[in-house]
């Protein structure tokens, strides 16, 4: 890579690294695996930097690689870790505010991997429905329904009555 391109890459990564690490951790709930995913993502990004830098939305591009890395079971055998790929338990988390980190991370981890990816891409990565669908290689309808299901499953660890009301309208909107 030419030095000026490398400098651009370094600047981009320095700013984005904490956020990418956060996204990776929310996807996998494992500190080592989160580092693995981010490292693999940023290595790919380095190799393809010129193309990526020219992308319309470089953040969406990077998040797409990140999520695919997470879903790529071949990389290391993380898929068996904890609830893994099986249809998940929905933990009955009955309190909130006690330990936010634990309850939200736990609730996220109990979602199917693909649904978790939708939630992280849309609500942390701020990707549009269309960009999320493109990143995951599925339809926008699928993203909408998964997003509604994910929010529904997270209901137990999010907000009070106002939240539930908002969720209902969100559900109606998303499923429609």
């Amino acid at each position: 890579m030419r030095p000026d391109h490398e400098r651009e890459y370094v600047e981009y990564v320095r700013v984005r690294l904490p956020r990418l690490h956060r996204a990776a951790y929310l996807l996998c709930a494992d500190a080592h695996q989160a580092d693995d995913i981010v490292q693999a993502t940023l290595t790919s990004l380095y190799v393809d930097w010129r193309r990526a830098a020219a992308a319309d939305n470089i953040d969406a591009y990077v998040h797409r690689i990140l999520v695919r890395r997470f879903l790529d079971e071949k990389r290391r055998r993380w898929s068996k870790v904890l609830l893994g790929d099986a249809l998940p338990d929905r933990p009955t988390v009955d309190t909130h505010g006690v330990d936010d980190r634990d309850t939200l991370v736990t609730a996220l981890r109990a979602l199917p991997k693909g649904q978790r990816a939708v939630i992280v891409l849309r609500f942390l990565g701020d990707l549009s429905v269309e960009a999320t669908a493109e990143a995951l290689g599925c339809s926008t309808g699928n993203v909408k329904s998964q997003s509604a299901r994910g929010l529904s499953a997270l209901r137990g660890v999010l907000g009070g009555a106002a939240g539930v009301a908002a969720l209902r309208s969100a559900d109606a909107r998303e499923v429609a």
Partner: protein
Amino acid sequence: MSQEQELRDRMDTLDVPPSRLDMESLLRDGRKRVTRRRTLRTVAGAVVAVAAMLVVPAVVVKQRAAGPVPGTVVPGRPSVGPTHTTTTCAIRTLPVPAGLKDVGVTAIDPTGRYIVGNGSVGQNFRPVLWTDGKARALPVIAKSVQLTGVNSAGVVVGLAEDGPQTEYAFRYQNGVYTQLKPPAGDWHIYPEPSINAAGDIVINVEPDGNTGGKDSFAIIWKNGATTATKLPLPAGANLNDITDDGTLIGSIYRNGAAQAGYAWTQPGKGRKLTVPPGQEAAAYAGRGDWATGGVWPDEKPALWNTRTGKVVVLDTPKGAVTAPALKGLGPGEAVNAQGWVVAGGYVVRDGDPVVLAAPEGQQAMATAIADNGLVAGALDGKNADGSYRTIGPRTWQC
């Protein structure tokens, strides 16, 4: 505040463990990769894909396969020959120790007598051992105690965690936990310990601070030992299982991604397990002369004969529903002496179908299989709002 906004805020602000990645090592890895790619291009005269990107299991949602099919139950017999005989396996509930929630099964011993699994409290595991179908909650000696394997003598292995950087492997035998020490130095172990009939236990270690399996190697705790021995395997070799004759089942990884499965002897003599053309493969589990794992990008389970290296890629059972964007069931996770494979919650084999009985509207999710055809796993159901829940642990006798 709307729920979506709250979710955004919470995701933005919750505590995450610190990353150990730094700019310098990222640049070094990037440069190395570019160099490697150039070299490969020169040699092969072709563009090498940067990343074997997988299509996404957008949702791991399975619907119930077409109900229990009446058929002949043929326990423990590998299916051969032209006639199609569906094996239907009767379901039975595994009891759950009082006070434990969300209990799932992780492994079964080859005789089917012992089953291990875990419940959870928050993000922490609580260990459960079933003996002859009777459940017992094992003592909780750390913040999280997770059982990952059991042998025919009822010796259990697992991972304990008492906070960040304090994860260790253990053996549980005759009511006593024994901590298994990694080699001297700062390592983390992954993915989880595996045990054979002789009591030998294998896992991999990676220097703390490294990622992607960089400088990792496989270790063994011989029966009764608490100190590990490094196994003399090629660079990039990571293990997932050890069979009763001591054969090591694993794969060679390059840049964090598996290239091919192998069966190694303990002195390090390896047999490469055949990789179908156009695919890459990883081996995850072994039993007798069988190994199972997966092939990518086809995302299907593979069954190898470790003596000959010959591979069979297993088809998705008729009526099985995989995730919308997934081509196959995903990799094989467990195999028994007859070559029956557990993959994606189903039991599959090279030949006739196996059906795990489940009540209407519910789905069997297999995770482990014994030589006598006893399958352990969970029963899943769908909530009225479209979400999913695990009903509880179950066994199926095939």
